[in-house]
């Protein structure tokens, strides 16, 4: 039995590998390199507690005397701190690993929330149509006319003031996910609605209606699976955007507190020390952030080319 199932797995993998997508992936070095880098960063972030030599959240491991050691390749470094230390004496390498983990987590969760809201609203709006469609799409227009950061700054500043910074810091991660998630749903809603409008005209939807299936079933089982390609494409872009939004908010002091730094708050906390010579506290997390966002966008670009219905549709 188990033998049988591994066979199926293998054939599914080889089918994917030999499909159009697999072929174009193999032929595109940019996509291959991007995926490798992304996978490396993601793995390091996931296994941060195993890889990191120190636990940056554990106050007992931090010694203020170790502060501002430079990275190992610069004179005056301490061998145990690979990328040096920050202003509080935390090992920068461990902090970056944990910070990347937080950034990715917030990015993915926020995008999941966006996708959930946006896909549901887009499906309903496109399938039901009429006044409901107009109402939802006008809401999306209004939402889009505020910039994400503006909404987030106001929301986070108000909550910070309301709950006090201690409570805020404790729940900062949830607030960030919520605010980035809610403010970007129209992107999904519009894309999904457009594909639903196109799919709805196809005969398989009529055929499902003639068979008497309900609207929920038709939307979820028939239309949604056929609208997945554009959702995949915008998801990659949205993850990159969410990571940047989080970093910007943290940089402005409205995101993750310095005790649990994400990449953004790390960059921000090192900013004060740039001119005193400790450039690495800002520069190294900055480079990681840029590389992370870049590879996600490159993967998104490749995916858009492959899944473009104008170039290829079976």
């Amino acid at each position, binding site marked *: 039995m188990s033998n049988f199932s591994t066979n199926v797995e293998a054939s599914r993998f080889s089918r994917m590998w030999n499909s159009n997508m697999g072929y174009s992936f193999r032929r595109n070095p940019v996509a291959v390199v991007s995926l490798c880098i992304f996978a490396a960063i993601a793995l390091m972030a996931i296994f941060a507690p195993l890889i990191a030599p120190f636990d940056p959240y554990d106050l007992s491991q931090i010694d203020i005397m170790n502060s501002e050691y430079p990275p190992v390749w610069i004179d005056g470094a301490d061998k145990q701190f690979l990328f040096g230390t920050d202003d509080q004496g935390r090992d920068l390498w461990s902090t970056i690993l944990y910070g990347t983990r937080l950034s990715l987590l917030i990015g993915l969760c926020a995008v999941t929330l966006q996708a959930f809201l946006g896909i549901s609203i887009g499906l309903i709006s496109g399938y039901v149509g009429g006044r409901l469609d107009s109402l939802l799409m006008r809401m999306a227009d209004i939402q889009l006319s505020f910039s994400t950061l503006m909404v987030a700054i106001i929301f986070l500043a108000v909550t910070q003031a309301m709950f006090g910074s201690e409570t805020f810091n404790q729940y900062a991660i949830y607030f960030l996910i919520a605010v980035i998630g809610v403010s970007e749903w129209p992107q999904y809603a519009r894309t999904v609605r457009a594909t639903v409008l196109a799919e709805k005209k196809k*005969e398989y939807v009529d055929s*499902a*209606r*003639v*068979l*008497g299936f*309900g609207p929920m079933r038709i939307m979820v089982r028939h239309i949604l699976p056929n609208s997945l390609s554009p959702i995949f494409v915008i998801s990659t872009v949205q993850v990159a955007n969410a990571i940047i939004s989080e970093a910007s908010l943290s940089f402005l002091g409205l995101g993750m507190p310095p005790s649990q730094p994400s990449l953004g708050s790390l960059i921000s906390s090192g900013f004060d020390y740039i001119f005193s010579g400790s450039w690495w506290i800002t520069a190294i997390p900055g480079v990681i952030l840029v590389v992370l966002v870049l590879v996600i966008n490159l993967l998104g670009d490749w995916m858009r080319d492959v899944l473009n219905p104008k170039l290829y549709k079976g």
Partner: protein
Amino acid sequence: MNTNKPEKPLLDLQNVEKRFALDQGFLETIKMRGGKLIREKREVHAVNNVSLSVERGEALCVVGESGCGKSTVARLIAGLLTPSAGEIHYDGERIDNRSRHDLLPLRKKMQMIFQNPYASLNPRMTIQQALEEPVKYHTPSLTRAEVKDKVAEVMLSVGVDPSWSARYPHEFSGGQRQRIAIARALTVNPEFIIADEPISALDVSIQAQVLNLMLEAKEQRGLTYLFITHDLSVVQHFGTRVAVLYLGSVCELADTATLFENPKHPYTKALLSAVPQLKDDGPSHIRLKGEIPTPINLPLGCPFESRCAYANVRCETERPAAVQQPDGSLVACHAVEEDRLQD
């Protein structure tokens, strides 16, 4: 079998009309005319006052050219559209104003086959999933094994090997997909099938296969068909009766043999003469002047008046009613009524 019942048609359309609004929303209805703002709602008159009935066991063909409203008629009957006026009765019960839930029992009796086999199957569902879904939905009491048996039986009956059921639609050719689409309609054991141009997207040799399949299904399952097509040679072969549609109105309704031997309406005559024949030399069709007018501003009189060689003042102002002819056919034409076609 139904001799003890009084002769009640299986499907009955009474004065059905369908109009589509061309300007949606308030803003689109406002227009500038002669320096003034006016509010005007334009409508497409897709189906106008169509009355048809389908008897049990027959195959009624609806023919016409593109834009004549034949697909709209099919969609109205299938409940995909609601008529703007008129009534549709199935087996004596009115069906056009029912909710989706109330229509569920009817869905098992009435099914539809679509024109494009490349679009009528969900590309992300395997054949097995696509065929199981309606069975499970309409008879939830069946066990998994019974559902599988049913699917295999239907696949065999349309000539698709059940061992292919794990494949996706794109792995099949057009003809095989149309067989699968027919199989899907047959899974719920319907008695009435609406076929909207089911073979026009297929190649000649495949058309024959699918047509044969539909004839077989008719005999074995006692199906009744409403067959929408533009292809008159298929009508002659498949239909028991024919309704000719022009600009959303029925212009002639007759038994197939009667219609092909003795077409009466000038449009039917032109249509029949335009079919390219295999074994005569050179085209010899009746030339119609002009082209089909748009169904937005319907002519006041006969819809065919602008292209008809026999049109007179009466045709321009008065819409002809369907009149029964001695041989049983219904013809809506003043010229036929007044007997001035003979020259």
